């Protein structure tokens, strides 16, 4: 991570309410290119809400948020796989690429599907896929769109060991090409190894923000 790069997204004192219920407040963080930020916290701490705010899908109740991104440069991989069950795997990818203004060739689609191990299932309807395969297709979708900021909401849900290693590999590759990754995870002990920094949401606020080594220290102290 290089400090000189402008941050892709920066949050300043962001808070959010659902009705009158406070989810969190005073979250201040930035994400720079080539950085993997791990978001940790107990259930209901607002991790997914934070991700939605970063994606611009939710207007925060208080505080400010700035992007240096163009529309379409945010990739999202989470509970919703963003694939149409009645379109085939390759049709899904074609559709999303075109919606993002790309004109991919058949080979491009095949290459991406190959990377996630779905080449053989390219012409099958996504609705017939298992949860793990659908999640892989969703990963292929994000890879194809070549996002500058990747938002991962517990992306490992339903993935087997082989698929998890594909995911890990792609996260490292995304970082290598200068994309930033914001990653909500439940498996802190495992995923922290792949991250650069960690933010912990707890007790209706930002309990910790720092590098992974600092996080391990903080965790041991607590």
């Amino acid at each position, binding site marked *: 991570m290089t400090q000189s790069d402008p941050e892709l997204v920066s949050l300043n004192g962001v808070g959010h309410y*659902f*009705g*009158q*219920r*406070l989810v969190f407040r005073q979250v201040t963080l930035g994400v720079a290119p080539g950085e993997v930020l791990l978001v940790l916290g107990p259930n209901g701490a607002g991790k997914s809400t934070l991700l939605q705010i970063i994606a611009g899908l939710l207007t925060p109740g208080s505080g400010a948020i700035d992007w240096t991104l163009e529309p379409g440069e945010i990739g999202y991989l989470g509970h919703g796989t963003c694939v149409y069950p009645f379109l085939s795997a390759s049709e899904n990818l074609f559709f999303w690429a075109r919606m993002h203004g790309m004109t991919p060739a058949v080979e491009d689609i095949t290459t991406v599907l190959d990377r996630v191990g779905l080449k053989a299932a390219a012409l099958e309807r996504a609705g017939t896929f298992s949860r793990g395969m659908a999640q892989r297709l969703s990963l292929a979708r994000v890879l194809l769109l070549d996002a500058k900021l990747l938002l991962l909401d517990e992306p490992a849900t339903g993935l087997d060991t082989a698929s998890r290693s594909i995911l890990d590999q792609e996260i490292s590759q995304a970082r290598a090409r200068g994309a930033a990754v914001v990653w909500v995870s439940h498996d802190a002990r495992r995923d922290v190894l792949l991250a650069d920094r960690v933010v912990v949401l707890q007790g209706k606020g930002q309990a910790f923000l720092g590098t992974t080594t600092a996080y391990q220290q903080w965790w041991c102290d607590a």
Partner: protein
Amino acid sequence: MKVTPLISILAVAAGFTLVGAHLAIWLHAPVEATMGLVQKIFYLHLPLAWWAMLSFFLVFVGSVGVLFRKTASWDALAGSAAEMGVLFSGLALITGSLWARPIWNVWWTWDPRLTTALIMWFVYTGYLVLRTSPIPHAKRRILCAVLGIVAFVNIPFVFFSTRLWRSIHPSVITSSGGGMEPEMWQAMGISLAGMGLLWLALIILRTRQILIQERLDGLWAARL
């Protein structure tokens, strides 16, 4: 939320004015020559219809307010106005029907104003259905605001289309209300004012109720 005597004052004033209105309707205004006593319904019917129309306008105002400033009070205003609009236009339709039966010999006829009122009653009842649907707060507010605006924009179209429809179907009935005695107008004025005060008191009361309800919901949610 501060407790102000405003609603009580309005309610008491409405009560007295409505009593006065009834005295004027039954004692001051003469019995209409051709229609007889049935014509007296008209003194309730017209104010109900007027204030219902104003309610629908308030729904529009509240809806636009919600889109500009997403505060709960605009939304509550739109909600209470819609409820009053449906209530008042419903009563206006019923009183109109009761009047039409002896005078026109039908419960219902194709009159542009009547039909517009009926269709608006349907539209705003639909609006209330949307309001009571189980949708998250913030989202429901926006959706209702959108519908509140669309519904209001629709009113002139409904009116013109029903009028155009009827002008080709020659109607048996000429429009009513013309040729009223001055005493009749005075009674009508008092009735309008009384009904307006009642309407205003109800709107304010209901708006505050909705706001308090939302606060209670919020406090309950915060406890969880």
